[in-house]
Each structure stands twice: as structure tokens, then as C-alpha cells.
């Protein structure tokens, strides 16, 4: 599984209230997703395309344990997040929901709008211009779960096999 998309660049400490604003917690997740990151980038929900990639600095996903933070990115078509570090609950939630997230020490050096191919198993992110960024790979067993769409679809698949 490789992700080929255009990058949206963000800074450090993109928290769960920016990703999934609490004001929309009671309603349908599709509605909340329309407000994903709007506090710092009002055009993000409209601009993001299927397969796009979010890049960020340190502590991506810091804050709440709400899984909606990862769901909102998925609903906006985001296929992968590269960050210099992740908050641990967000990291687990994202993989559990089928969103590949990779620790990439040079994620902040990738400009917004870059065409990028990410190979989670190999742990590489290759810019269209040729520069290769190394990332912490996602182990194969975990990637099977991610590729299935997360833990629940993976369990369904393995149960029926």
C-alpha cells in the first residue's frame, strides 16, 4: 500500500480540538469533518482531495482521546499523516481506524502542495522532485490492519477467513 498525494503543511501541536472541534461532538461525524482544522486553515475541508497527505511538526494529535480526530482527516480524504512526532493516543487511534501515520523527522521541510509518494512499509516519503525523506516504518502486521481499513474491518475479515 502506497499513498500518492499532495501535501497540506501544518506546524507543531495540531491538537484534537483543531482536528475535531468539541462543539460538533454530539452531531454526525460528517458534520464535524466539515470543520476539521478550520480554526487555523478555513479552506482545508474544501481544499483537501482524496489521497492527500498532511505534514506537521511535533506532537500531532495532542489532547483528547477522541477518535474523531483521525476520522475527520479520513473523511476529508486524507490518506496519510507525516509528523515529527505524534501524541500516543492519536497514533494508536489513527492506525486503529485505518489512517497510516508515520514519524518523519524532516516532515516540516516538505512544502505545502508537494506531490509525495509515501511507502509506510519501507518508511519512505518521496517528493516528486526526487528528495526522499526517511520515516519510521509501520510494521507489516500493523499495516495489514491499516490496509483493511482499521481494527474492526480487519477483525471482520480475519473472522470470516
Amino acid at each position, binding site marked *: 500500500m502506497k499513498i500518492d498525494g499532495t501535501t497540506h503543511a501544518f506546524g507543531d501541536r495540531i491538537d484534537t*480540538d483543531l482536528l475535531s472541534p*468539541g462543539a460538533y*461532538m454530539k452531531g454526525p461525524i460528517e458534520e464535524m469533518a466539515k470543520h476539521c482544522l478550520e480554526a487555523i486553515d478555513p479552506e482545508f475541508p474544501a481544499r483537501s482531495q482524496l489521497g492527500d497527505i498532511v505534514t506537521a511538526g*511535533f506532537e500531532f494529535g495532542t*489532547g483528547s*482521546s477522541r477518535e474523531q480526530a483521525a476520522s475527520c482527516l479520513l473523511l476529508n480524504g486524507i490518506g496519510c499523516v507525516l509528523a515529527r512526532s505524534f501524541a*500516543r493516543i492519536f497514533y494508536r487511534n489513527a492506525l486503529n*481506524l485505518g489512517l497510516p501515520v508515520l514519524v518523519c523527522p524532516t516532515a516540516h521541510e516538505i512544502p505545502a502542495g508537494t506531490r509525495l509518494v509515501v511507502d509506510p512499509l519501507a518508511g519512505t516519503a518521496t517528493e516528486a522532485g526526487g528528495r526522499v525523506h526517511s520515516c519510521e516504518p509501520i510494521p507489516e502486521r500493523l499495516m495489514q490492519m491499516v490496509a483493511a481499513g482499521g481494527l474492526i474491518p480487519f477483525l471482520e475479515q480475519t473472522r470470516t477467513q
Partner: protein
Amino acid sequence: MTHPPQTLTQKILARAAGRDTVRPGEIVTVSVDLAMMHDSGGPRRVKPMLERLGAQVWDPEKVVVVSDHFVPAVDVDSAQILDLTRKWARETQVRRFFDMKGICHVVLPENGLIQPGMMAVGGDSHSCTGGAWGAVMVGVGATDMLGVLVTGEIWLRVPSTVRFTCQGSLPPGVSAKDIMLHLCATVDPVSMNYRVAEYAGPAVEAMEMSERMTLCNMSAELGAKTGIIAPDATTHDWLAQVGAGVGDLEVLGDPEAEIEREVVIDTPALAPQVAAPHSPANTHAVTDSLGTRVTQAYIGACTGAKLNDLHMAAKVLKGRRVADDVRLLLAPASTKITAEAARDGTLEILTEAGAILLPSGCGACAGMGAGILADGEVCIASTSRNFQGRMGSSKAEVWLASPYTVAAAAVTGAIADPREMLA
């Protein structure tokens, strides 16, 4: 056979993994002694997943459900969520269901449900609060919780320990909250990722449970996997007072166990702290922000509305009045705390000063209950997070501080040094 010395956290995880020892960095599968969920991330999220898999809860006796996020219902949507939560708890035979009794991280210990040595999970990022009882308690999302509910187990990476040694004692007007805000600004959160924050030293040993809870609670903001404090007589006294035993899981770390590093805090030198918008990491001494106008002061949340937090606010507010152009909102962390504060006279002091009493729950801290902010408003809160938009408008500002400092700002109408009001 002798084993290498182990930290408190390693010993708890080793026992829960059915092993003699575990090493930091190792991934282990542990059995879960307690799984806590609330109305927001709990039944309404896990029920459809359980149904989809045709799975059952492994042991309803080890599950606790607390309704604290959408309480009391303010519209049909929140009423439906609370109704679903009640029905699920009943259908699933979860006996320990606390409906509108307060915030989960406070209600669990009030009922003696967190015992030393437990391996617990909670469907909330501030679940690390449970570490104050010498337990390992980690926050998880709904899908991870589903895995626990079905199997009674979870995989975890064994964290290395960063020990925060608080020397000396806290000066007047300075509290555990100030220690944590100070650490949020001075400790690189990346250096805490996947580590456990262990709090120790004379200042911690002298703290009552309520203050220890604040330390462990804000381990989330520090970027740690969780926080923990070695159980002692203070821990045992709490458990005895709430009519629970210590249990049989209690362990202590080996003194010679290897830790990753130690951070020493010169507690007596600490001044009251405030965190500027929009991150707890933007903390500095209160004296650097004196005079910043506020429109709302909020004493609430699992972090800052325990009985001891109310006592701190009352020390400042006794015989004083909230400034005319400020509203002071008070949401005690549990109904038990409200009752205790009524009994000991604290509520009288606070309400006579002009505080507006709100229901117990996560409330405005989570952007859900009463006390939401408009564009351009400035709030000072005893809560733990001041993320942009968290308490309402993304154009509002939230400052974080101790209950002393929040109360001082409520009186002055601007950020003020509470030490000047504590005679």
C-alpha cells in the same frame, strides 16, 4: 532466582502481563483490571462496534461507565446520548454506572475503584489521573476500548520512567497545578512521549490525594503516556475513608531500578504560573502577565474543581467580591464535592463572593456544557487545556492557572498575583 530491579510501572505491567519482569521499550499484552468509559467516547461509540462483531463484554464487573460530558442534557441530542448510555449500562449489566455524579476521573476514586497496583484503561486522555493511587491507568480511544471490552486485554509498550522530584515544600499560594504548568513550559513534550512521569520527593509526599491527582492528571499535557505516584499512608487513608480496601495488587518500585532521567524541581522557588493561549506550553510566572483583562473566570474540570481546589479559591474569595465586569463560574468536579463544600462552608464563601454554581461535569472545559466563550472573550480557567476553540469560539482566549490565581483574577478583573490576597 533474582530479577533485575524494576520501577513501580514495570512491576505493575509485569504482573498484568503474567511475567516476572518487563523491559522498557518492550511491547507486552496485559490483562486489564478496570476499564472506564464515559458518555462521549463510551457506549455510543462501542455499542455499534460490538454489534458489528457480534461480541460481548468480557467482564461487566470490571467495567465502569460514567455520564459526565453531556450532563445535564441541554438539548435533544445530548438527552439521546445520555439515554443510550443508561440503557447500554443496564443491558450490559454494568453495575458500576455513575449517572451525573461528576467527572469520571474524580468519581472513580471517590468510590474506591482505583486501587494501588491496578492496570486500568480509560476512554479519556485524562485517565492518567488514576496514577495518583499507584496504579497504571492509560487513556485509549474507542476502538482500543472495544478491544479491551471484548478480550480483557490490551497491548502496550513498556514505558521508561522520567522521575520528577519535587524538593522542599510548596510556598503559600502555589499548588500542584503550578508545578504542572511550569513543567509544561520547561520539559520538551517529545522527550516525554511513551514515558511514564513518576512524581516523587518531599513536596509530593506532603500532598493530599487531590493535589497528587492534579500532578498525574496533567501528565497528559506533559506528553507522557501516563503519570504515577508511589502509594503510601496518604493513599491508604483515602481508600479507608471511602470504605474501600487497598486491595492485593499494591507494589512499590525497587529503589535501585534504572530510570531514564530525573528532573529536580526547586518547589520552594516556584511562583504562581499562568499559561497563555493556546497551549499549556505557553506558561510563565503570573508576574509576567499582571493586568491582562479577563471576562470570565472558570473553576471546573477534573483538573481544577476538586474539594481542595474549591478551598484554594475560597481562601482568596473570602470577604471579597467578583469584579462587576467578570463572571465567575464554578462547576465542582462531582456532586459529592458540591455536598462537602456545602457542608464545610466553602460554597457559602464562593457564592457570597458572586460565583455562579454550575452542574458537575466536564462542562465548558470540553466545550460542551455551560460557560462557552464568544469571539474576543478572555477566560482564565483552573482546567488543563487552552487549545484554540476548545471552550467555544476559536477567536476566544483561554489562560490556565491554579484555583488561587483564577480567583484572584475574578476579584481584580485582570490577571493578578494571588499571593497578595492571601494574608
